[in-house]
């Protein structure tokens, strides 16, 4: 056979045949190339699409864990609601796509048939809400507010309602035991976002469309533990959605329960007293601004000294966390986040920062000792301190002569600290600092944990601010453009300040160091930071990370993961100085600025030694901030009220009432252990029953009101009352008549 056969044919045909052959082969080559492109180059992409095609997931939600108080009282749990759902797959099998069944169902539920149909239709770009945007294989909830009667009607006539189920389902509930609200600490849930679904879809715990995720507070911080693990069953389906095999099935795992250190009763007392103090403050006249105090917001923290555990944490204004359950309405959302709301969602105990005023003085006291000044002094407590043309006055321009640092704390003498801080500033080189400036006053503040998060187990804590040299420089760099543009040498006060700042805002000036020494100026702290510091002073110097979570209990109650107290440092003071400071702070409560709230009004100082420090911070353009920091052997209580007046004036009675409730102290100073809510910190964890449920004691209807009644009643009727109520439960003393309050009506002394 030769390659060129003798065909005797014209070359025209021969050439055309070759052309045909080339054409044919190139067509096949094209197919091969395309096949390679689809299978090898883009194969992974299509493989993914194919698996999405034939696997359908049915997700069974996990029951969210409860949040309990220290004694096991549920602060957030789940209530059972009757949820009526329809299975689309079953409905579509019917001749009329289940229309008749849905119409009948609408009749039972008292809804319009159209309403029900809309709820079960699938969402797409053309379908407006309401529609179902979850998996079509998932039962579609029609209502979660079915009555037992409706549910019974559906279940008993199951043959009339094919594809319809009425099942009890868990829905989040914030129980508010004893009217304690705890809103900002608990946080809230809101529906999962598309982004989160996409992110979690390939993990072992995918979100449901209908899932709720913790957005703030404990719900967010412990979301992973509380959420549990949704059960996932993967079905292989064919092109008509018929199940052709079960691929995998993981049962749902309920979320763990979180035991907190919060005591619902103390929490209620704290909330009630904070709110009451703010209401009272609004009745007081502010002589500086010539209007009533606004008392626009406030916070109080009750902390265990030896562990850093938070027993109560209240923030005002507040809100009802149940507003978020089942999806927040647009109206509620505006109310909670709008301009006029004053932001009740903020937890001001960890997110509210303001100048601390005199409760800050423990820091410069420690700083002065560290810098080499003797605690005993004496230091001149003049009525004012002059710097150039500027006069820095003592509070209400009172002078005490030469005194020790301890006495300066007791009487809250500003000038002593002005002088010391100014002196140190000069020693460090003034506006032109030495290379290795000591900056004792600033360094000590940082060592106290200020200007940084305390590490509390709540999200979005703020740091506050220590206005040291570095901060001044950074702040100036960020703002100088604005300052230099708006500043005028002879303009208004604000313009003059801007002018000065533009020129030398990068330097720490003498005035800055003086203002800073009494917690004024640019200094900012949060209530939780101050509570941590005062707890540390009380416990011998350990700065604990504040914690709300105490333990995580597995759903069956068998595994307990305790959240142990953690420390983030020690106070930079010697034992001796600490003891001296402790004594001085006791002096504040017995003969100093807080005496009129404690020692002078029947506080049993011999039984329960009280330590305190008052603070009244001035804020430019606003009314003064009230601060009150106190501690006993076991507890610290720090309260602040923005635009509320003086420290002891506005916050004093509330803090006293909180202590009264903790220890069962009556107005006359008698200690009645029966009335005490928590004379020593709660030890141990709530008892778990064998079935995994947690024992929880009953909480009175309103512990705050009862406490008030107890305290006042005892003051009047004393022993008689006690004798008569021996068998009355501690929190159930409702017989006591209300008496006109005495402390509240007292006028301010100084």
């Amino acid at each position: 056979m030769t390659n060129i056969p003798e065909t005797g044919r014209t070359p025209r045909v021969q050439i055309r045949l070759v052309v045909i052959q080339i054409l044919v082969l190139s067509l096949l080559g094209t197919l091969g190339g395309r096949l390679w492109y689809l299978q090898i180059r883009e194969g992974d992409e299509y493989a993914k699409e194919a698996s999405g095609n034939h696997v359908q997931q049915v997700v069974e939600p996990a029951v969210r864990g409860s949040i309990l108080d220290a004694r096991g009282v549920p602060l957030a749990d789940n209530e059972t609601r009757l949820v009526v759902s329809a299975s689309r797959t079953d409905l579509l099998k019917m001749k009329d796509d289940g229309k008749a069944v849905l119409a009948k169902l609408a009749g039972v539920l008292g809804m319009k048939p159209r309403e029900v149909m809309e709820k079960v239709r699938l969402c797409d770009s053309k379908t407006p809400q309401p529609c179902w945007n979850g998996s079509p294989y998932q039962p579609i909830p029609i209502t979660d507010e079915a009555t037992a009667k409706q549910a019974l009607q559906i279940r008993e006539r199951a043959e009339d309602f094919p594809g319809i189920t009425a099942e009890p389902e868990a829905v989040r509930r914030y129980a508010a035991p004893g009217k304690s609200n705890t809103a900002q600490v608990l946080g809230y849930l809101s529906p999962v976002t598309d982004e989160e679904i996409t992110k979690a879809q390939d993990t072992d715990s995918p979100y449901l469309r209908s899932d709720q995720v913790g957005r703030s507070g404990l719900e967010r911080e412990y979301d992973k533990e509380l959420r549990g693990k949704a059960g996932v069953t993967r079905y292989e389906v064919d092109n008509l959605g018929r199940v052709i095999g079960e691929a995998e099935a993981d049962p749902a795992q309920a979320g763990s329960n979180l035991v907190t250190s919060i005591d619902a009763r103390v929490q209620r007392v704290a909330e009630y007293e904070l709110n009451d103090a703010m209401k009272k403050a609004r009745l007081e006249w502010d002589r500086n601004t010539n209007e009533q105090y606004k008392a626009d917001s406030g916070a109080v923290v009750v902390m265990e000294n030896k562990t850093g555990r938070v027993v109560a944490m209240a923030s005002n204004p507040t809100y009802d966390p149940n507003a978020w359950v089942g999806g927040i309405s647009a109206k509620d959302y505006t109310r909670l986040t709008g301009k006029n709301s004053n932001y009740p969602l903020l937890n001001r105990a960890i997110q509210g920062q303001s100048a601390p005023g005199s409760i800050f003085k423990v820091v410069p006291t420690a700083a002065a000792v560290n810098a080499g000044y003797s605690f005993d002094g004496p230091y001149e407590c003049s009525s004012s301190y002059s710097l150039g043309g500027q006069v820095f006055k003592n509070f209400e321009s009172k002078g005490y002569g030469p005194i020790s640092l301890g006495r300066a704390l007791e009487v809250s003498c500003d000038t002593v600290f002005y002088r010391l801080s100014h002196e140190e500033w000069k020693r460090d080189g003034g506006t032109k600092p030495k290379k290795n400036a000591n900056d004792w006053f600033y360094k000590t503040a940082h060592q106290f944990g200020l200007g940084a998060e305390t590490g509390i187990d709540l999200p979005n804590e703020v740091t506050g601010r220590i206005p040291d040299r570095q901060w001044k420089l950074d702040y100036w760099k960020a703002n100088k453009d604005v300052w230099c543009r708006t500043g005028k040498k002879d303009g208004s006060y604000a313009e003059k300040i801007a002018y000065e700042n533009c020129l030398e805002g990068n330097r720490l000036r003498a005035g800055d160091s003086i203002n800073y020494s009494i917690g004024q100026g640019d200094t900012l702290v949060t209530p939780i930071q101050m509570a941590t510091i005062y707890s540390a002073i009380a416990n011998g110097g350990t700065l604990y990370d504040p914690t709300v979570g105490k333990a995580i209990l597995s759903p069956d109650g068998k595994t307990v993961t305790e959240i142990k107290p953690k420390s983030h440092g020690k106070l930079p003071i010697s034992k001796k100085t600490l003891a001296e400071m402790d004594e001085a702070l006791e002096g504040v409560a017995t003969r100093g600025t807080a005496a009129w709230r404690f020692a002078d009004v029947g506080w049993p100082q011999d039984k329960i030694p009280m330590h305190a420090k008052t603070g009244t911070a001035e804020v430019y353009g606003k009314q003064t901030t009230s601060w009150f920091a106190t501690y006993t052997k076991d507890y610290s209580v720090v309260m602040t009220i923005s635009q509320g007046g003086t420290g002891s004036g506005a916050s004093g009675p509330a803090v006293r009432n909180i202590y009264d409730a903790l220890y069962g102290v009556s107005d006359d100073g008698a200690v009645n252990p029966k009335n005490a809510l928590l004379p020593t910190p709660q030890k141990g964890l709530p008892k778990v029953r064998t079935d995994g449920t947690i024992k929880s004691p009953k909480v009175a209807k309103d512990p705050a009101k009862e406490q008030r009644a107890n305290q006042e009643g005892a003051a009047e009727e004393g022993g008689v009352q006690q004798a008569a109520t021996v068998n009355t439960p501690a929190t159930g003393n409702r017989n006591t008549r209300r008496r006109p309050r005495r402390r509240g009506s007292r006028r301010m002394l100084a």
Partner: protein
Amino acid sequence: MTGANTFQVSGYGPQRAGWARLFARDSLARRLDWPILLAALALSGIGSLLVFSATRNRTEINQGDPYYFLIRHIMNTGIGFALMLGTVWLGHRTLRTAVPILYGASVFLILMVLTPLGSTVNGAHSWIVIGGGFSLQPSEFVKITIILGMAMLLAARVDAGDKPHPDHRTVLQALGLAAVPMLIVMLMPDLGSVMVMVIIVLGVLLASGASNRWVFGLLGAGAAGAIAVWQLHILDDYQIARFAAFANPSLDPAGVGYNTNQARIAIGSGGLTGSGLFHGSQTTGQFVPEQQTDFVFTVAGEELGFVGGGLIIVLLGVVLWRACRIARETTELYGTIVAAGIVAWFAFQAFENIGMTLGIMPVTGLPLPFVSYGGSSMFAVWVAVGLLQSIRVQRPMSA
């Protein structure tokens, strides 16, 4: 299948006995084009596996018998093989004399389709149901008779030595011969088959040595025809929708684009070696419609991967390569034209069928030669193989 080779071609080779005669130097067995035969058998074999995989779970069409389609496919292949042997036995020259009868019969059959005897499948009214689950698609046979008829007319005077090329009058006659069944098929409407026939006519004209004017004229007419069809709304809605979906499959993924999309997902997910026979999720889940017929290539793509899909393309390449050689090497113009017509037919149909599953050609209902399930198509392609063999066998040995 060695028994197949005992057929004798009358008048060729000295008479020898037994095996020696079978494998003698110029025997039939030696002259057969084995690569084509083996490739075609391999394709039919692969086809039966793919058809089985695609249909064993489709209870709604396989009457509850998973082997229903497998058995039928093998039967079809057997019948096709027998038809091939018959064709070789008769020889294409003998068939040449019978062309008028065959042509007439095939035209009669497609006319029958237009009567109430015909039935509609997937929008095309191109079937005659015989009964017992069998049905006939006469347009498949028309492809052969068009090739044979045109070849007869075009080659008559050239092979007689009168002219070097067919003259205009002959070409016109040949075109007329092709046009009649094509018009009927277009009325069904079976656009895919019409497209194949147009390509066949083009291939036949090219191979016949007809003047370039005819070739380019036909191309121009084809283009003009396409525009006319588009403008005059001759196409049914489903056909326009298929083309639109080809242009943009994501346009309507649940509707018209569904086929194309699912086909591409099936093939793409196969990767290099595929998910293994009977393990393709797209195939088991029946996501690709018409998977045993028009979309049979997706089964290969998903379950056998690039290796399997490539093998099918290579086997088709072998058939076409050998067919081209046969066209070039035969001495008679008649044989050349018939072979070229078959090449044009197979090549276009394979390209269109695989191309549509790969998303580079619009969706039309054309089977993949040898592989797709379907009796008529299987018979027709095997007859074509028989014609090719016959052309090769009957050419004088060049040595």
